[in-house]
């Protein structure tokens, strides 16, 4: 299992990959070069994802209030099912040493613990309950026609940018 899941094998040799892995959950491990339209596979899944977000009302500010008030099971059901399905999938991928459709070895980078997962996560949690959206639903709310969410979205980008600016001064 460990053999197929090395920790950032390219990281030591590739400072750019290291920079992108920094504080990120989603990184492109693939070393393959593809034409741009290969990215449409991600857009296609994104479309399905956006439809799910709206149809299951995950983008609703009200559903987030229900969740944090413990007055509805809905969001716990959504997140819980997603984790179970993800967990089983990752287990199958690891057990079968599955390769990508392009034949690459699948690599899941390990998260290093740092204090950001306490302080940063707390700040995000506070913001989540106010804005009623995490980053994914922000895109969906804008797409669904709530134009004022552009302001929330730009504020979220500003927050990310300010984090990059003051990163060195924060406890990690």
């Amino acid at each position, binding site marked *: 299992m460990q053999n197929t899941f090395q920790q950032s094998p390219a990281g030591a040799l590739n400072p*750019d990959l290291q920079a992108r892995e920094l504080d990120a*959950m*989603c*990184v*492109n491990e693939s070393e393959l070069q593809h034409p741009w339209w*290969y990215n449409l596979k991600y*857009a296609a899944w*994104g479309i*399905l*994802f956006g*439809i799910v977000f*709206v149809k*299951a*009302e995950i983008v*609703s*500010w*009200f559903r987030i*209030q229900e969740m*944090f*008030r413990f*007055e*509805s099971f809905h969001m716990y059901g*959504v*997140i819980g099912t*997603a*984790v*179970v399905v993800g*967990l089983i999938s*990752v287990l199958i991928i690891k057990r079968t040493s599955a390769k*990508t459709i392009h034949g690459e070895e699948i*690599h899941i980078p390990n*998260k290093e*613990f740092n204090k950001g997962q306490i302080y*940063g*996560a*707390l700040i*995000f*949690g*506070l*913001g989540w309950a*106010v*804005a009623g959206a*995490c*980053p*994914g639903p*922000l*895109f969906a709310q804008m*797409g*669904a*026609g*709530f134009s004022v*969410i552009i*302001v929330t979205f730009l*504020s979220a*980008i*500003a*927050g*990310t*940018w300010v984090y*990059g600016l003051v990163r060195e001064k924060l406890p990690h």
Partner: protein
Amino acid sequence: MLEAIKQPWPWYVAGALIGLTVPYLLLVGNKTFGISSSLRHMCAACLPANIAFFKYDWKKEIWNLFFVGGIALGAFIAAQFLSNPDALVLAQPTADYLASKGITDTTSMLPPEIFSWDQLFTLRGLIFFVVGGFMVGFGTRYAGGCTSGHAIMGLSSLQWPSLVATVMFMIGGIIMTWFILPFLLTL
């Protein structure tokens, strides 16, 4: 069929489809699921300002921007063509509580009493969109991920730091909902 799709989708359907994102991205291109990173790539693309955190080749992560672009487009399709004709069914205790704070219109995804352009330049608008959005962007990046990156991808691959982050997300949300929002909603 279309009638069934137009109804709100149950949690197990939504949860299963969201969970399948994890193997889809891994199998299709060795990508790990995460959404908040897209905000960082936008910073790196538009305003890197010589900040070390934004100095990397964002084009290598462009798949992530295609993914979030898809989310917006999918939401547009769902809202335009698949939308539920009935109002959102909110848990009664939540509805009662919000009504006591003056939030009575629960027909839409977002309460129009808060999330509308004419609220933008009020103190309440400033807190709900600008401060709230800022905390989402700042906090997710500081935490190294959001609900998708930590709670779903991280827990799926048994990363204990992601469990810490997920617990802290919930604690933050609970503190806000129970101790700070009751005040903010009366602004």
